[in-house]
């Protein structure tokens, strides 16, 4: 019985993914034309291309991930190097957990008031970058910690035996050893960033024009899809085309994560 139910669910899930893919492709195809990726949106996004959106997306997501890695990697290193089973580190652990669990919309609310309003950055790519970086940092820290801890403990022992300092061990041995998993974590965060709508909607805004500075508003692809669905009358068809592109981007990122993790992440 379990076998049958399991078989049905597995095929259901596989079918669902294929269905979604085909659905996006078929519905999206009507809005797709030669040059879709290279033209600016026209008519409030209902026609034209998505070139400017792709620029904003790349800008926001890349800079946010870079900014977040900048803080997260040191955090993860210090965490793995110095943590003991003390009250302080347990508190840190809880804080990180809360950060990972914090919903995007709550970060959006936070960024929307603090960066957009209080720091007067306005609805801008900069506000979006900082908010997204805040959102991604706990995810990155946790992922990095797991990656650093997964390195062979024997490696550290060998380095100690060879008389290497802690930093030398870390810099020359542990970090290189953990590199594939660190990169996979960063790519995963990039994927999260590309897919985010709730946090960026209220910080980076919904402008579809080409950003000329970090103080301009710019919609990422996911925000663009959401905007087409909720604000632009008759935007559903265009939303499908943009969503199809987003689907493809996500597939590519997923493939990159698998590649970065080495073959057979789940196969052992």
């Amino acid at each position: 019985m379990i076998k049958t139910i399991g078989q049905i669910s597995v095929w259901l899930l596989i079918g669902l993914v294929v269905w979604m893919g085909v659905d996006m492709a078929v519905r999206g195809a009507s809005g797709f034309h030669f040059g879709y990726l290279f033209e600016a949106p026209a008519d409030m996004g209902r026609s034209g291309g998505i070139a400017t959106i792709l620029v904003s997306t790349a800008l926001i997501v890349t800079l946010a991930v870079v900014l977040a890695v900048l803080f997260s990697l040191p955090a993860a290193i210090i965490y793995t190097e110095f943590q003991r089973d003390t009250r302080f580190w347990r508190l840190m652990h809880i804080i990180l957990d809360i950060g990972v669990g914090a919903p995007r919309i709550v970060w959006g609310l936070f960024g929307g008031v603090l960066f957009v309003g209080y720091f007067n950055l306005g609805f801008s790519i900069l506000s979006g970058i900082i908010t997204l970086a805040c959102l991604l940092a706990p995810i990155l820290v946790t992922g990095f910690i797991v990656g650093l801890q997964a390195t062979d403990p024997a490696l550290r022992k060998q380095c100690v035996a060879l008389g290497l300092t802690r930093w030398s061990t870390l810099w020359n041995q542990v970090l290189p050893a953990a590199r594939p998993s660190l990169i996979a974590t960063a790519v995963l965060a990039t994927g999260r960033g590309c897919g985010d709508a709730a946090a960026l909607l209220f910080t980076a805004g919904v402008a579809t024009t080409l950003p000329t500075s970090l103080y301009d508003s710019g919609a990422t692809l996911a925000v663009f899809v959401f905007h087409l669905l909720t604000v632009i009358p008759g935007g559903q068809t265009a939303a499908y085309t943009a969503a199809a592109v987003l689907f493809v981007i996500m597939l590519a990122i997923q493939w990159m994560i698998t590649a970065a993790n080495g073959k057979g992440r789940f196969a052992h």
Partner: protein
Amino acid sequence: MLASLAAVPPLMVVLLGMYLVVCSISALLQIPVAELFAVQWQPSGDSYGVLLLLTGTVTVTLMALVLTLLIGLSTSLYLTLYARPKMLQVANTALGTLGSLPSVVIGLWAMTWVVPLFGNSLSSAAITAALMIVPTFTLLCISALKQVPANLDENVRALGCSDRIRALVILQHARQGVIRALVLAASRALGEAVAIYLVAGNIAQWPELFGPIATLTTTLIGELDVATGAHRGALHILALLIMLLITLVSLFCRPKLIRKRT
């Protein structure tokens, strides 16, 4: 230098928490506390009863979790116990893909295929939320089931136990991992906003299977850009509530990052 950079991520989380608490407290100065317990969420009428929204969030999450348990457990059991390696690989790819899809894409799909069947309703919301969490749950379950020593399964089979007993023994052994996966799924479902917003109907009322429902998160995303004054304050209280819910759930059971060093 390194330490000061490292301090930023946890500090931002603390800042977020403090911000929510401070804003909620200042909102309480504008909204009488009794008003929060009213069974009505109607900002233009100055009623900010969070009860209905809280019930909405909890109901959607619970229903999604039941669906996830059904699909996820059976899938992972089948994949670990019976499926051929090729099948496992295909399923892994499918689950990975589904899990990586952004909520707008899932929401868009659900809007086109689920809403015509169930309307803008609690059922649609639960199904959509389940779609968001099934992949992660299943993948985590599979890796938990894989931790079960192979000889346990061999012994059970040698005893000639039925399939059901076999599954139960293995689940019993992997239960910690399964619970952990479930908790993670629950916290994702609690915080999901965009996908559910597109299909839920967003009316604050008692849950009905085919009636519209509003949750804490859908209310936030729907009203944040129009809210002013006390309404805006009330939304901060909603955000704080979601955070508290998620924190409670994830503190209940969390993966061990702190390890005894060797």
